[in-house]
Each structure stands twice: as structure tokens, then as C-alpha cells.
């Protein structure tokens, strides 16, 4: 079983880890090794060329502006990064920022998923929550941060704000995914007497997974944007947002850009990690889903792999 996920991760598709949401006929096994290598190689060259081009644009802009306060050069930023990397305080800030933002993110994912199940199952829960969640979605994040600063400590503000930004995205997408589960497949499950857990594993989770994955990755990007904004305004101890704020106060433009680069890098790395974890989860469902049906028999009777041989006995 493959869990379809709605990501534009071509490498993952080529590896066969995930399938595109639009159900295009991408069959990883039919790619030859050489064609896969060429495709990945081409991607790396495109990335490299793009990076070189935009760095050149950056350097040219620096030379035209010619004011270190307004724009630092790529080399100055690299120098700042090298200095930051040697400071334990910087790494503490990275660690605590990750902890705060990811805590809010996971709480948001958990609450959003639970609320999605509840709102689809019970119409009154949907009617009760819809105005609140709609209000949260349309309220500027800065308003919430300032309000939250009145209510709680600066560290908790970040977790709370990230939670508020992520939860509605997960809720809306997962609820949509649940609503779009094909009722005809549920009828099939009913007549062929699939158990509740089989129905969940083989119909519900694969149906909702593209919506969940799309929301989870979008939510992660939002979490970092809102989380850092909250850190800048609330300046908790050991925070990347706090360091950004300090760099702005002291007009340390290279530091400001270096911290921004670190934030972008962290956000991208964690998104990649999330995609990998979700692809692993897809494989988990594959092996465990199938083994639930056949493993006991297969182990007991040493049944060979199905579908690997032509024909067979009935």
C-alpha cells in the first residue's frame, strides 16, 4: 500500500517513497537506474546554478547600494555565521526555538486532527467551533502575539501562537479529507466484512493522508514564520527571534541576515525531516497493513510471496 501524499517532492517520488496526490501514473519501478541518476543529477545542477545566480545578484546589489547598514554582502554574512557557530549561546537559542515552535506545532497538529474528526462526526461541534476558528484564521498574527503577551510568559507566547496558526490549517484540511472519503469504498468494506481497524487502515487513513500531509507541511512553514514573529515581539531568553531583534537594535545587518539564513535552513530541514517521517509512516502502513491480513498464515504455512510468480494453484 502506498500512502498518497500531496507534496511536490520529486526526489521522493523518484525514490518510490511517495506518490503524487493527483494519482498520475508514476511507477517508480519502471524508471531505469540511469534515468533516475540523470534526473537527480540535473536537479542538483539546477539548484547549484540558481544558487550561484542569486548569490551573484545579492553581491551586485551590495556593491550598488554600498552601505553595510542597509545590506550586508554574502561574505559578511558567511563570516557572521562562522562567528555564531562558535558561540554556545547561539546553539542554545537554536535548540530552544526548535523546542518552542515544534511543541506548538505538534499541539496544533494533534488538536486540529482531533477537532476535524469531531466536527465531521458531530455537526453541532462544527457549528459551535466554526465561528471561533474562522475568527482565528482571519485575525492578524501580531494581534494575537500582543494579546498573548498580556496573558502569559514570553516562552509560552511562542507555543501558543504557533498552536493558533497551525491548528486551523490542520483542522480545515483533515476535515475536508474525511468528508471526501469515498462512501462507495465504505460500502465495499461493509459487504466484504472488513473490520473497523481494517477500514481505518486501508480506506480512511490512505484517503485522508494527502490532505493531512499537505496541511502538515504548510503548517510547518507557518509555524516557523509565526513562531519567529512571536519570538521577535516577546523576546524570550535563548531564542532566534530574540537574536534577530538584538541584531536589528544594534544595526548588525550581517548578523540579522545570518540569523534569517539559519531560520530558513532550519525550517527547510525540518520540512524534509517531516516528509521523511511521513514516507516512513506510509511504509509502516504498507508492511503492517498487509501483514495483518496475511502474515500469520504466511509465517505458519511458509507461504511464498504472492504475485511474484506466474500462475499458482487455487
Amino acid at each position: 500500500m502506498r500512502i498518497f501524499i500531496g507534496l511536490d517532492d520529486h526526489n521522493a517520488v523518484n525514490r518510490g517513497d511517495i506518490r503524487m496526490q493527483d494519482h498520475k501514473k508514476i511507477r517508480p519501478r519502471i524508471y531505469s537506474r540511469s534515468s533516475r541518476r540523470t534526473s537527480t543529477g540535473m536537479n542538483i545542477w539546477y539548484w547549484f546554478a540558481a544558487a550561484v545566480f542569486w548569490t551573484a545578484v545579492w553581491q551586485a546589489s551590495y556593491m550598488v547600494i554600498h552601505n553595510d547598514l542597509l545590506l550586508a554582502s554574502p561574505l559578511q554574512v558567511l563570516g557572521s555565521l562562522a562567528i555564531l557557530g562558535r558561540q554556545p549561546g547561539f546553539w542554545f537559542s537554536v535548540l530552544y526555538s526548535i523546542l518552542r515552535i515544534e511543541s506548538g506545532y505538534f499541539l496544533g497538529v494533534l488538536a486540529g486532527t482531533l477537532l476535524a474528526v469531531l466536527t465531521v462526526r458531530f455537526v453541532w461541534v462544527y457549528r459551535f467551533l466554526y465561528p471561533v476558528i474562522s475568527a482565528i484564521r482571519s485575525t492578524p498574527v501580531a494581534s494575537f502575539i500582543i494579546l498573548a503577551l498580556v496573558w502569559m510568559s514570553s516562552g509560552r507566547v511562542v507555543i501558543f501562537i504557533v498552536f493558533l496558526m497551525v491548528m486551523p490549517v490542520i483542522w480545515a484540511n483533515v476535515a475536508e479529507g474525511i468528508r471526501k472519503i469515498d462512501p462507495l469504498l465504505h460500502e465495499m468494506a461493509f459487504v466484504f466484512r472488513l473490520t473497523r481497524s481494517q477500514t481505518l487502515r486501508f480506506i480512511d487513513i490512505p484517503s485522508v493522508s494527502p490532505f493531512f500531509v499537505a496541511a502538515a507541511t504548510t503548517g510547518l512553514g507557518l509555524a516557523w514564520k509565526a513562531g519567529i514573529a512571536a519570538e521577535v515581539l516577546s523576546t524570550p531568553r535563548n531564542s532566534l527571534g530574540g537574536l534577530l531583534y538584538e541584531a536589528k537594535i544594534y544595526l548588525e545587518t550581517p548578523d540579522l541576515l545570518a540569523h534569517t539564513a539559519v531560520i530558513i535552513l532550519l525550517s527547510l530541514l525540518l520540512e524534509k525531516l517531516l516528509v521523511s517521517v511521513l514516507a516512513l509512516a506510509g511504509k509502516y502502513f504498507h508492511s503492517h497493513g498487509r501483514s495483518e491480513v496475511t502474515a500469520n498464515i504466511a509465517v505458519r504455512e511458509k507461504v511464498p510471496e504472492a504475485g511474484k510468480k506466474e500462475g499458482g494453484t487455487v
Partner: protein
Amino acid sequence: MSIVFDHLSMRYDEQPVISDLSLELPEKGIIGFFGPSGCGKTTFLHLAAGLIRPDSGVIRGLEELRIGVVFQEDRLLPWLTAAENLDLIIHDRNVTAGWLGKVHLSGQADYYPSELSGGMKRRIALVRALAFDSDLLLLDEPFQGLDQSLKNLFSGWIREASAFKPVLLVSHDWAEIEDLSDRIYKVEGPPMTAERIK
């Protein structure tokens, strides 16, 4: 014990689809329902499968029956391969592999439904229903997309199954119905009426 449909009535959007229909099915054999599209045959089959309830009337003899169904649509799980779709119902990889071989799909065992042709998917849907340990078989236009040799192949297995259980065959193709059925009802509607003609 035979299955009895007693004064069934059913409405969709205030339109009567089945009106006061009474039928008694034999304990075995193929019972064909022949009629044009939209006359209520599929609704009748869904009632027999327990997927919908009649507005009035009762169905007796279906309680606790295991029912194998070939739906009008194939209803395969798109994220499972052909073999996995069958494994889910058959619970035995050897049997699955055997069935795939018999319907000439061994080479497509690891294909996903989106990678199979319409006829291939239909074969998987038919195998799923035939291989399911059932007391009643419901077939809704089962041969669509199949060539004559495959129709003959499946017809033989359906005949074999009908020696032990009732098989309800619904089709708008008279040749299919006439060729296979031990008892034939001509269906008209809506609202659906069924007149026994064989």
C-alpha cells in the same frame, strides 16, 4: 432457507424507485434480472446487499448471510496493488496468486488499479466476489469491459458457484441473462416491477 422480498417500497428524492415489490428467491441457481438502465435494478441489488433499507416492506432470510458483490463500479482500493486488493478479502497469498493466474493477471499482481485497464480491474472485482466465502452472490453488470473468452471463463465459475448458493445477476444485456440464468425476471420502471418470464 430462501430469501423473500416482501412488499418492498423505496423512494429517492420523493420519486418511487421500487413500489410494493414481492419476490421469493430459490436457495440456489442464477436468477437474472433483465431491464433497461435506470429501472431500479441496482437499487434492488443494494437492498439485497443490506446497503440501504426499504422505506416499507421486509427482506427475510438475509440475516447473517455473507454476501459477495460485484458492484457496477469496480470499487478497488487505489492505493493497494491488484494482489493486495484481493489479499484483503481472500486472506491467503497462495490463493490470491492462483486466482490472478487463472484470470491472466499474474504479471499485473503488483500494479495499482490506475495502472490497469478497465477489463483488468473488472477481473479483479469479479475475482474478489467469487473468492469471498459467501452465501449469496450479487452481480451488477459483471461482464462490462470483458471480451468473450473472459466472459465464458467467469460464466463457468459463476455457474459452479450457483450450484451451492443463489446468484442474482443484473444486466441490460439479454444475451448474458439468457445464457446464464436459471430463472429470469423482466424488470421495468421506475418504479421497479419484476415479471418472471422464465
